[in-house]
């Protein structure tokens, strides 16, 4: 250790040079994301005992540390998770909102025009042009159902792609964080007080980016590495080891995606982040929307067919079904691993008003069936004999019994809008009459036109009202999503602001520090100059 005036001045020079270097590093990183302002920490050198006095030996740079606050960083992560959640949910919900409400792209105009054309036939039943218009409008209506449904399918594909993207990012961030853990541990574990500030900053900002996609909890280890958990303590990162997430098709429902971690379903293990937003969008907006839309399609198709097949067409023949649902009225999906069995389901005309916008799961075990309505997870009572039965407006029959425990997903409404098709092409085949041979008879057409204003569907809603329920539901979800997004943005901004004011670089402050260190540096240089002149005067004395 240097001693004496010269030595002490030298420690000052070195300390202030280091300080200015830190300041210059701060200035250089003023716009770097995730950079934490660094301080050069100085302490006095141990003094030496000389001739009964403790003489100071200058200054030493003990460490360069970053301004870090655990609480602030946790806040940033949790607000990033909530924001990621709100962002993902809002972006997708807004699209559905726009699709359904727009009179051109939604269903309202098509439903209105169709019933106008039915009214046209009822006031002029012998007119072939009026009948032709109705045939065309029926096709337009079914096509519009198909289009809206396929738009919803597109949103589902987009949402699935976003989930996949989130999972890819989560996997890549966890890999990077685990790698950083290794580096940090190797630099820190050698003991000592030096901290690899840049690596720590990098890891913090990666954790924040990870949190945008999935909410995580962290636990620091003594060696400087951290463990990252999701849900109730499933470790995503443990030191240098990490778990991988993957997106796969559900085994019970082939149309559904689930998130697996090390082969286990963890879909319900996280509660915020973009991945949660996407799942929430699917479960709370997209699926119900698709089912409600299907309820309208199933309602129009079935109610219309019932009346139409009771009427008489212009050729004197009994009316045929106006709409069909292809490939089948109600699709039933067998779960993977089922022991055979064949279940069929159809709409029940008499109880059409009890049909709900929901899927159903039919479980078979030990010779008996249980039926669960999935929208509210309610067990639906089956008669003592099991199947066949009629519940919630659908007939369920067993064509062949399963050989063992099995389950089936029954989707009365989910695919109805996709599958509906208007099949009558001959205008003479519209059954406007109820009496054979009475070509001017409009009584059946009148009844068909009246379907528009009847409370045919669940809750006594008309067809149009059932669609309005859908628009209002999605609208409220989108509204709530907007409110929550702006709230989460504000919270996230607060967290970022808190971090910025604590750890961000302020150029004025750095400028002031620079002056301070420059002055000190110049003073130390002056001391060296003075010690030289002292030495010179001493030399001069003996010359």
């Amino acid at each position, binding site marked *: 250790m240097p001693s004496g005036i010269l030595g002490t001045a030298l420690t000052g020079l070195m300390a202030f040079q280091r300080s200015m270097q830190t300041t210059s590093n701060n200035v250089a990183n003023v716009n770097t994301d995730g950079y934490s302002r660094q301080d050069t920490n100085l302490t006095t050198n141990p003094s030496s005992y000389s001739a009964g006095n403790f003489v100071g030996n200058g200054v030493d740079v003990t460490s360069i540390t970053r301004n870090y606050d655990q609480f602030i960083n946790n806040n940033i992560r949790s607000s990033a998770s909530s924001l990621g959640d709100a962002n993902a949910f809002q972006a997708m919900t807004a699209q559905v*909102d726009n699709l359904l409400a727009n009179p051109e792209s939604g269903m309202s105009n098509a439903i209105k025009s169709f019933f106008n054309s039915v009214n046209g036939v009822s006031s002029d039943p012998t007119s072939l042009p009026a009948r032709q218009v109705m045939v065309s409008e029926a096709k337009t209506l079914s096509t519009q159902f198909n289009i809206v449904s396929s738009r919803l399918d597109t949103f589902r594909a987009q949402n699935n792609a976003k989930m996949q993207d989130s999972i890819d990012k989560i996997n890549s961030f966890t890999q990077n964080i685990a790698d950083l853990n290794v580096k940090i541990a190797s630099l820190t574990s050698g003991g000592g007080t030096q901290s690899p500030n840049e690596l720590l900053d990098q890891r913090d900002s990666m954790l924040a980016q990870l949190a945008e996609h999935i909410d995580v909890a962290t636990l620091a280890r003594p060696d400087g590495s951290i463990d990252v958990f999701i849900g109730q303590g499933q470790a995503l990162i443990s030191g240098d080891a990490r778990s991988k997430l993957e997106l796969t098709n559900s085994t019970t429902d082939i149309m559904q995606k689930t998130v697996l971690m090390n082969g286990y379903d963890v879909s319900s293990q996280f509660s915020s982040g973009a991945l949660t937003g996407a799942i929430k969008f699917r479960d709370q907006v997209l699926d119900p929307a698709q089912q409600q839309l299907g309820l309208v399609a199933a309602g129009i198709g079935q109610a219309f067919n019932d009346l139409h097949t009771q009427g008489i067409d212009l050729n004197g023949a009994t009316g045929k079904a106006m709409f069909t649902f292809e490939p089948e009225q109600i699709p039933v999906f067998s779960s993977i691993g089922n022991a055979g069995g064949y279940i069929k389901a159809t709409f029940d005309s008499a109880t059409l008003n009890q049909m709900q916008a929901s899927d159903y799961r039919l479980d078979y075990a030990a010779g008996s069936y249980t039926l669960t309505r999935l929208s509210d997870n309610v067990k639906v009572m089956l008669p003592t004999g099991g199947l066949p039965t009629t519940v919630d407006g659908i007939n369920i029959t067993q064509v062949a019994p399963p050989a063992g425990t099995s389950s089936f997903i029954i989707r009365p409404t989910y695919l109805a809008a996709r599958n509906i098709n208007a099949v009558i092409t001959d205008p003479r085949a519209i059954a406007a009459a109820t009496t054979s041979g009475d070509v001017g008879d409009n009584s059946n057409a009148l009844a068909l036109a009246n379907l528009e204003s009847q409370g045919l569907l669940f809750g006594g809603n008309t067809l149009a009202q059932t669609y309005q329920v859908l628009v209002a539901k999605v*609208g409220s979800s989108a*509204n709530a999503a907007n409110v929550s997004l702006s709230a989460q943005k504000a919270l996230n901004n607060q967290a970022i602001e808190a971090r910025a004011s604590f750890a961000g670089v302020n150029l004025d402050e750095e400028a002031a520090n620079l002056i301070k260190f420059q002055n000190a540096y110049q003073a130390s240089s002056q001391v060296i100059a003075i010690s030289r002149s002292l030495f010179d005067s001493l030399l001069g004395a003996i010359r």
Partner: protein
Amino acid sequence: MRISTAYPQQFNINSMANQQAQLTNTQAKISSGQKYLTPSENPSAAAYSLSFKESIALTEQYQENIAAANQRLGLEETALANVSDTIQRLQELGLQGVSDSGNSTISRNAIASEFDQLNDHLISLANTRNANGEYIFAGNKSTTMPYSKIAVDPNAPATDAPLPAFAYAGSSMQRAIQVGMFRTITDGDVGSAVFGSTEEGESVFDAIKNFTAELRADKPTLETLKKIDDALVRVTIVHASIGARQNALDRQKATNDDFIINTKTALSNIADLDMADAITKLNSQQNSLQAAQQSFAKVQGMSLFKFL
């Protein structure tokens, strides 16, 4: 309080972007005239406006139905007025024929010829068709000619009972048209109700035919002529009921018009933009954006480094 240099800048940029978004939103509303661009802005208003539009469209359809019914009833009324005139002429001639004074066999034969002509005219009125080519007195069998004259075989022996010369081939059902939410109106009358049904031998054509035969035989009776009077009574009743239905249609049309106007007003209240309000908003948003831009430019220029 300590603040970082970079954050306030980002914050200002974000807030300017926000203000710009709001400005664009207001501008889009002004250009579309809509109060809400998406249902999410006001879900209940969106549902109401869909349901209002639906009611308006439905009621407008009823108005079209009323126009069609009115047109058909008008056509029927013209035909019936003509029928009344014809029957009245028949009554005059009939009374002339029955009275003994100054009537010869020759003049009764002349009256009988005119009766034949007028009967043919009445039949053609009973077979009136509308613009679509439908027979207006055939009920639901609107493409079937309701009355056709069955030619009497001129060589048939006089002792044979006269053939039923007029048969109603139409339907006994008449179509109803929806003109209001809970109201239907029949857009015509079946021939059997206007002209009498052949099955009962009561049709006006049969009465005329029988009276004509009596004239030719030179022994016209008041009893037979009375049947023609009865036919006029039937026509008058139907005629009056058409007037009543036309009145009902007019009232229904006025009710529907009121409903449409009221609903459109309600729709406009919830869905149409208040322009004055929107333009004021646009101005104030523009001002605050400008202020933010100016203050940003000023504050950004400040740094201690400038003085070093």
